[in-house]
């Protein structure tokens, strides 16, 4: 398996030894390069995801989606992005200007922040703390603030209703989300993302297999709660296009709206990415204990594994979104507090019991 650390070490050596830069400059340049890489990947993935969403939803709906711009509509999203970039951004009369302009940035910060935690390949973790998982949930909570401030600052009654819905929903679902992550932490014994993935390498070591029943349940709950956290259907009632026109971002135009749009798709990716990391082994290839097969699988780069698994989860979430009608706010809360929360607690207990008694499929003990 290719270890990305070779590349990073070489680059570090290049700056320090070959160019002879001081510690400060080395780290500064590395940070800038990594930051640019994140933003580039972020933008490109958003475009890919938007295109994917449009095609997938079209196919579910017996349509063929965009086909006019570029071959098979591939340039459609670029055209849309261009359109969005050249649109004027203007605030509504009597809007709270500071909050109004601040809100999209908060959403983007939360989204980019969580995005940076994803493990792309062996040795290619951008942010890798010993409390990684914990920090992910903390940073993702900033997004709630963005949504709430946007609704409040817009001076629009629909937006206020939507902001309150969004805040209530996202805060509630963070509980299940957190509990599911904790059960994974119990199983792996670490909160560090690279550690969690490392624990899943080897034959039949993906957490979803390793932790069997409680892990599968935790994965499903995580998908539901993650969907709600990303504000996507059937939990998209903060947007609730048929009720509140566009909810909290009704009054945004141009890139103000563009940020929300980007963040929505990237949050989808981040949720899927974390689900992949924690339950489906991240970049860990599919190993079944037969040497030849495992060797072939190991030959496929980790980033392909990671993106492949993530997009499978993304497709699953899109499938759910384009099948079901939207819930009502009290039903969403009922689902969380009456069904998902107790279930995640049960999963937590079950997982602890399994780990304590060693009823897991682990090879390293």
């Amino acid at each position, binding site marked *: 398996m290719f270890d990305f650390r070779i590349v990073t070490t070489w680059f570090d050596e290049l700056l320090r030894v070959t160019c002879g830069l001081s510690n400060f400059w080395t780290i500064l340049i590395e940070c800038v390069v990594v930051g640019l890489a994140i933003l580039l990947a972020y933008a490109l993935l958003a475009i890919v995801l938007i295109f994917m969403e449009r095609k997938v939803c079209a196919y579910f709906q017996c349509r*063929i989606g965009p086909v006019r711009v570029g071959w098979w509509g591939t340039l459609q999203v670029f055209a849309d992005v261009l359109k969005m970039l050249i649109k004027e951004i203007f605030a509504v009369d009597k809007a709270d200007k500071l909050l109004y302009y601040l809100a999209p940035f908060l959403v983007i910060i939360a989204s980019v922040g969580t995005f940076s935690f994803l493990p792309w390949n062996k040795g290619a973790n951008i942010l890798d703390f010993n409390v990684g998982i914990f920090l992910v949930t903390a940073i993702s909570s900033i997004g709630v603030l963005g949504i709430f401030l946007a609704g409040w600052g817009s001076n629009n009654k629909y937006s206020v209703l939507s902001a309150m819905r969004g805040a209530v929903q996202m805060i509630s679902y963070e509980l299940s989300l957190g509990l599911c992550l904790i059960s994974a932490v119990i199983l792996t014994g670490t909160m560090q993302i690279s550690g969690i993935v490392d624990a899943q390498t080897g034959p039949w070591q993906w957490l979803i297999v390793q932790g069997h029943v409680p892990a599968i349940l935790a994965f499903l709950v995580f998908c539901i709660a993650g969907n709600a956290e990303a504000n996507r259907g059937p939990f998209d009632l903060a947007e609730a296009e048929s009720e509140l026109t566009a909810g909290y971002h009704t009054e945004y135009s141009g890139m103000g709206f563009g940020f929300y749009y980007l963040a929505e798709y990237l949050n989808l990716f981040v949720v899927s990415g974390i689900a992949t990391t924690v339950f489906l082994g991240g970049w860990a290839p599919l190993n079944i204990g037969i040497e030849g097969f495992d060797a072939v699988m190991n030959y496929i780069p980790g980033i392909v594994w990671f993106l492949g698994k993530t997009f499978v989860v993304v497709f699953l979430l899109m499938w759910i979104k384009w099948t079901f009608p939207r819930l009502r706010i009290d039903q969403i809360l009922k689902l969380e507090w009456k069904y998902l929360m107790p279930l995640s607690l049960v999963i937590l207990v079950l997982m602890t019991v399994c780990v304590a008694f060693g009823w897991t499929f682990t090879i390293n003990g």
Partner: protein
Amino acid sequence: MEEKKQSYFGEVGSALKTLATGMKVTMKEYFTPKSTEQYPENRETTLHVAKRHRGRLVFKRDENEDYKCTACTMCEKACPNGTIKIASEMVTNPETGKKKKQLLDYEYDLGDCMFCELCVNACNFDAIEFTNDFENAVFDRSKLILHLDKEIYKGGSLPKLIEGGADWKVGTFNTKKK
């Protein structure tokens, strides 16, 4: 719907079953033929427009390209919108000496027309009809004012479509371009 008393878990189970049914249907539809028709690529190939579709009004012409309109203005009177304006003069036939109305101008404003077919119903001479020519978009409103007696209509932009175009079957869509 009978009132069913279900346990907490029974409720969850049957709920999940309905959700699974829904997802099964959408997955099935994911692979069924799509319904998007490829206009304008298909306009000369697989496009079908019903023969009776009311696209615009035209004069019926015989083989000598003569029209039958006698300028009796029945259509003009029947029109609820004042879409049709007919100008005529009295001409004396030099041989018989009889006076006869002669059509000077038959002005039809496509932009005002609401396609109710009352003019066709009112016509006693079978002189006008609607065709299924639907490509009527122009860049200027004034171009919508047509003079039916001055033009010889040969089927507009899609002459092959006048009889309905490509075949069509209930339950399917002509999604191909060719």
